[in-house]
C-alpha cells in the first residue's frame, strides 16, 4: 500500500488536470474546490512521506516501457526536499492565482496546465532513473508554455516562443545525452554516489561529452549563463506564473537536475575524477555575477527580480559543484531558501502591480506607506536575498562560504561577498524608495485586493524568517539537507 504513496502524490495533480481542463470556464467554484482540495491533499501526503523517509522507509514503483527502459517513481531524502518545496508553494500559489485571475478568461485552461506543471515537477522530484526524469522534465516544458502565453498578447507570444526554443533545445540536448548514456551503461537508476564509477577508462571521452550534454540540457531551465535568455523575457507572464517559473517548478527543476546528475548519476568522485567539477563551479560563479550585474540596470521590477533569479539559482549549482559537504549543504538548502524568498518577492510585486499599477522600480516611491504589509513581505524577501542574518539567505551563504574554505578555494568567499554587495546594490534602492520616500502626488487610487493575494506572500515571508531562525531544528530545510548530504558523502 505505502509503496503507492509516490503514485498517489503524483496523481493528486495529474488526476485533476484533465478534469479542470474540461470544465467550462464559468464553473469557478468547482474548479477552485478541486484545485485547493488537490493541493491540500498533496501537502498532507508529502508530509506523510517525509516522516516515512526520515524513519528510513524506501518507496519505489515502476512500469516497464521497453526492454531496458522503465518509468520508476521513488522517494528518497532528496526527493522529499523538492517535494516539500513544490507542494507547499503550489498550495500558496494556487490560492494566489485564484484571487489574481478572478474574472479573467481561459481560467480552466490556466488551472489545468497549472496542475499539469506541478504534476511534472512532482514527477521530476520522484524520478527514480534518468529516463523518468527526462519524461517529466519535457512534460514540464510543454505544460508551462500555455501559462507563459496566457495573456495572449503579441509580447506574451514572443516570450512563449523564446521560452519554447530554449527549453525544447535544452530538452534535445538532455534527450541525446540520456540516450547516449543508456546506450553505454544500460538503465541509469538514481543511486547515492552515482552509477558510473566503474565504467571503463575507454569511455572517458564519451562520458565527459554526455555530462556536458546533460548539464546543458538541465542548465537551460536552471538559467545558467549563457542559457538564461528565456527567463527575463518570460516575466510578461502573470504573477502566479512567475512564481511557478522562479520558485516552484521550472528553474528549480533545472537545479534539481544538476544535483541528480552530479550526485546520483555520476557521483561526486567521478565528476571530480573527470575534471568536470571546477568548470561547472566556474560557470556557476560567472552566472552569479552576470545575473546580478544585469539586475542592477533593470527598471522593470519583475525583470530585476528575474535577473536576480539567474544569479541566485546558481548558488545551488555552486554548492553542488564545489564537491564539499559543507558547500553541498548550503547549495541544497538554497533550493528551498531561494524558493521561499523569490516567491515572496514575486507575489509582492504582483500585488504592487494589481493594487497600485506599480511595475517599475522608479514607481516604488512611498509604497511602504501605501501598502505596508506587502512592502514588509517584499523587504524580508529582499534582505534574505542579500544574506542579512538571521534570514534564510544568510544560512545558505554561510555554508557555501564554509564549503569554499573547506576545499581550499577562498575565492568563493570573495565571490559571495561581491555577489552580496551586488544584491544589496539592486535591492536596497527599492527598499529605500518604498520606505523613505513620500508617495507621489498623483498616486494611483488603490484597487482592492482580497486576502487571497495578501496572505500567500505574508506566509512565505514568515517562512523566510523561520527558515533562518530555526535553521537548527530537525525538519528545517537546513536540517533536512544535512541528512541528505550525510547520504551522498559518507
Amino acid at each position, binding site marked *: 500500500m505505502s509503496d503507492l504513496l509516490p503514485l498517489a502524490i503524483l496523481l493528486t495533480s495529474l488526476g485533476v488536470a484533465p478534469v479542470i481542463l474540461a470544465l467550462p470556464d464559468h464553473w469557478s467554484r468547482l474548479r477552485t474546490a478541486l484545485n485547493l482540495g488537490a493541493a491540500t491533499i498533496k501537502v498532507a501526503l508529502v508530509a506523510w512521506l517525509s516522516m516515512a523517509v526520515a524513519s528510513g522507509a524506501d518507496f519505489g514503483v515502476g512500469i516497464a*516501457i521497453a526492454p531496458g527502459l522503465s518509468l520508476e517513481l521513488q522517494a528518497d531524502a532528496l526527493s522529499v526536499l523538492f517535494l516539500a518545496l513544490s507542494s507547499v508553494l503550489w498550495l500558496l500559489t494556487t490560492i494566489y492565482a485564484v484571487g489574481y485571475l478572478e474574472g*479573467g*478568461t481561459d481560467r480552466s485552461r490556466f488551472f489545468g496546465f497549472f496542475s499539469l506543471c506541478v504534476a511534472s515537477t512532482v514527477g521530476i522530484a520522484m524520478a527514480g532513473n534518468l529516463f523518468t526524469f527526462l*519524461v517529466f522534465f519535457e512534460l514540464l516544458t510543454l505544460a508551462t508554455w500555455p501559462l507563459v502565453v496566457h495573456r495572449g498578447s503579441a509580447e506574451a507570444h514572443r516570450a512563449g516562443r523564446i521560452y519554447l526554443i530554449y527549453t525544447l533545445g535544452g530538452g534535445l540536448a538532455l534527450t*541525446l545525452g540520456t540516450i547516449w548514456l543508456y546506450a553505454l551503461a544500460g538503465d541509469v537508476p538514481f543511486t547515492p554516489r552515482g552509477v558510473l564509477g566503474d565504467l571503463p577508462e575507454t569511455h572517458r571521452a564519451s562520458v565527459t561529452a554526455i555530462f556536458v550534454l546533460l548539464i546543458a540540457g538541465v542548465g537551460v531551465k536552471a538559467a545558467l549563463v549563457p542559457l538564461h535568455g528565456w527567463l527575463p523575457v518570460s516575466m510578461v507572464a502573470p504573477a502566479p506564473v512567475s512564481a511557478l517559473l522562479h520558485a516552484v517548478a521550472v528553474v528549480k527543476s533545472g537545479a534539481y537536475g544538476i544535483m541528480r546528475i552530479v550526485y546520483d548519476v555520476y557521483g561526486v568522485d567521478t565528476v571530480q575524477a573527470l575534471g568536470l567539477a571546477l568548470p561547472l563551479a566556474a560557470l556557476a560563479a560567472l552566472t552569479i555575477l552576470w545575473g546580478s550585474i544585469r539586475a542592477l540596470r533593470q527598471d522593470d521590477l519583475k525583470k530585476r527580480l528575474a535577473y536576480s533569479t539567474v544569479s541566485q539559482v546558481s548558488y545551488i549549482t555552486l554548492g553542488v559543484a564545489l564537491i564539499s559537504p559543507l558547500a553541498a549543504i548550503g547549495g541544497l538548502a538554497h533550493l528551498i531558501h531561494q524558493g521561499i524568498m523569490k516567491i515572496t518577492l514575486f507575489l509582492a510585486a504582483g500585488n504592487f502591480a494589481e493594487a497600485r499599477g506599480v511595475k517599475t522600480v522608479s514607481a516604488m516611491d512611498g509604497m511602504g506607506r501605501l501598502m505596508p504589509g506587502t512592502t514588509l513581505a517584499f523587504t524580508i524577501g529582499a534582505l534574505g536575498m542579500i544574506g542579512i542574518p538571521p534570514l534564510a539567505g544568510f544560512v545558505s551563504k554561510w555554508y557555501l562560504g564554509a564549503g569554499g574554505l573547506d576545499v581550499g578555494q577562498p575565492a568563493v568567499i570573495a565571490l559571495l561577498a561581491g555577489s552580496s554587495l551586488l544584491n544589496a546594490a539592486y535591492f536596497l534602492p527599492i527598499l529605500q524608495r518604498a520606505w523613505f520616500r513620500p508617495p507621489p502626488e498623483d498616486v494611483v487610487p488603490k484597487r482592492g485586493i482580497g486576502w487571497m493575494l495578501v496572505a500567500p506572500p505574508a506566509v512565505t515571508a514568515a517562512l523566510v524568517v523561520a527558515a533562518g531562525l530555526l535553521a537548527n531544528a530537525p525538519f528545517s530545510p537546513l536540517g533536512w539537507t544535512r541528512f541528505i548530504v550525510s547520504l551522498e558523502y559518507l
Partner: protein
Amino acid sequence: MTEASLIVSLPLLAAVVTAASARVARPVGLIATAANAALAILLARRVLAEGAQVTHLGGWEAPLGIAFETDGLAAVMILMAAIVGVAVAVQASDDRTPRSATDPGAFWPLWLATLGAMNALFLSADLFNLYVTFEILGLAAVGLTALTGTRRALRAAFDYLSAGLAGSLLLLLGVALAYAAAGQVDLSVVPALTESAQGRISLALIFAGLAVKAALFPLHFWMPAAHSSAAPVASALLSALVVKAAIYVALRLSLDGGIGAEPLRVAMAAAGAGAMLWGSWHALRADRLKLLVAHSTVAQVGLISLALGVAPGAADSTLWHAAVLLMLSHAFAKAAMFLAVGRIAEELGHDRISGLNREELRPGAAEFAFAVAAVSLIGLPPTAGFVGKWVLIEGLIDRDAWIWVALVFAGTVLSAAYLSRVVSRCLRGGPHVAPGARRPQWRAGDVAALGLAVSALLLGLGSALPFALLEITVT
C-alpha cells in the same frame, strides 16, 4: 474458422452488404468495424498466448494453397488498423457531418473494403497475395480520395490512381520476375532472391513499387494533394493506414532478408532523410492546415523509412521494432490530427492557418486533440513516438551512426517548428473571446480525435505490449 480468416472475410462481406443497401450502411458499417476490433484483440491475445498462427485456407498447403501467417508483427498492424478504424467510423457516423463527406452509399463500402484488404495484406505470406491485396486496397483508397466529389478531389484522385497503377505495375513486374527466378512466390524464397541478378532486379522493382505507394521521397508527388483534398475521415484513413501498408510490406521483405544489399538499405535511409527535410520544409510553408498535415506525413514516412533502412533486418532484434513503434505512433497521431482538422474546419468554415486565431467561437476540444497529437508526432515523452525515436537513436548510437542521429534530431526540430505554428495559434485567446463565451458543443468527431490522440500518448507508457508482440515470430 479462425480469427485470421474471419478478420478478412467479415469486413469484405460487410462491404458488399453496405454497397448493396445504403439504408443499412451506417449501422452495418459501425457493427462490422467494432466486430473487427474485437477480432483483432482476440487474435493478438491468441498470438500472445499460443505464439504465431498459420492458417491454410481450404486446407491447401503452400505452395499450392494460400496461407495466412499471423505473427506478432501482423497482429500489431491489425490492431493498429482496427483502433484507428473505430475512431474514424465514430466520426464518420456523426449525423451532422456534411453529406458529401460521408455519403453512406459510398463511404462505408470503401472503408470496409480498405479494412478487409489491409487485414489480408498483413496476413499474407506470399508475394502474389501481397500484390492482389494491394490492388484491392489501392482501388478502395482512390475511391476514398474522390469521396467529396469536388474538382480538386477528383483531380487528386486521378493522380493518385495513376501513381498507384504505376506502383502496381512495378510491383507486378517484380513479383513475376521473382516467380521466374525462384519458381514460387512464398516469402520464404526472398533470401534466395538476393543471390541472383534476376532476383535482385525483381526485389529492386518491388521496392520501387512500394516506394511509390508509400509516397517515399522523391516519389511522393501525388500524396499531399490527395491527402489534403479528401474528406477528413478519408484523409485520416489514407495517411494513417493506407500508406502504412506499403511500409509494412517493405518491412516484411526486409525481415525476410530482402534488403540484405547495402546499397538498397542506404537508399531507403537516404530517401527517408530527404523526405524528412523536404516534407518539413513544405509543412513550414503551408498556408492551409490540411496541407500542413499532409506534408507532415511525407516527413514522417521519411523517418520510418530511415528507421527501416538503418535496421539490418531480423538478425538485429531491436532496431526494426523502432520502425514499428513509429508506424503505430504515426497512425494514431496522424489520424487524430486529420479528424481534429476536420472538426476545426467544420466549425470555422475554413482551414487557413492564419485564420485560426481571433475567432469568437473556437473548437477547443479539437484543437486540444491536435496539440496532443502534435506532441506524439514531434516525439516528446511520454508518447509512442518518443519511445520509437528512443529505441532508434539508441540503436544508432550503438553502431556509431552519428550522421543518422543528427538527421533524426534535425527532423525532430523541424517537426516541432511546423507543428508549433498551429498550436501557438490555438493558444491565442485574443480580446474577442468574451469570458464565458459559448463554445461549440462536443461532437462525436471531437471524441474520436481526442481518443486517438490520447491513445498515441498512452501507447508510450504501454509500449511493453507491442514490444512483447513483436518478439513473436513464425518459427
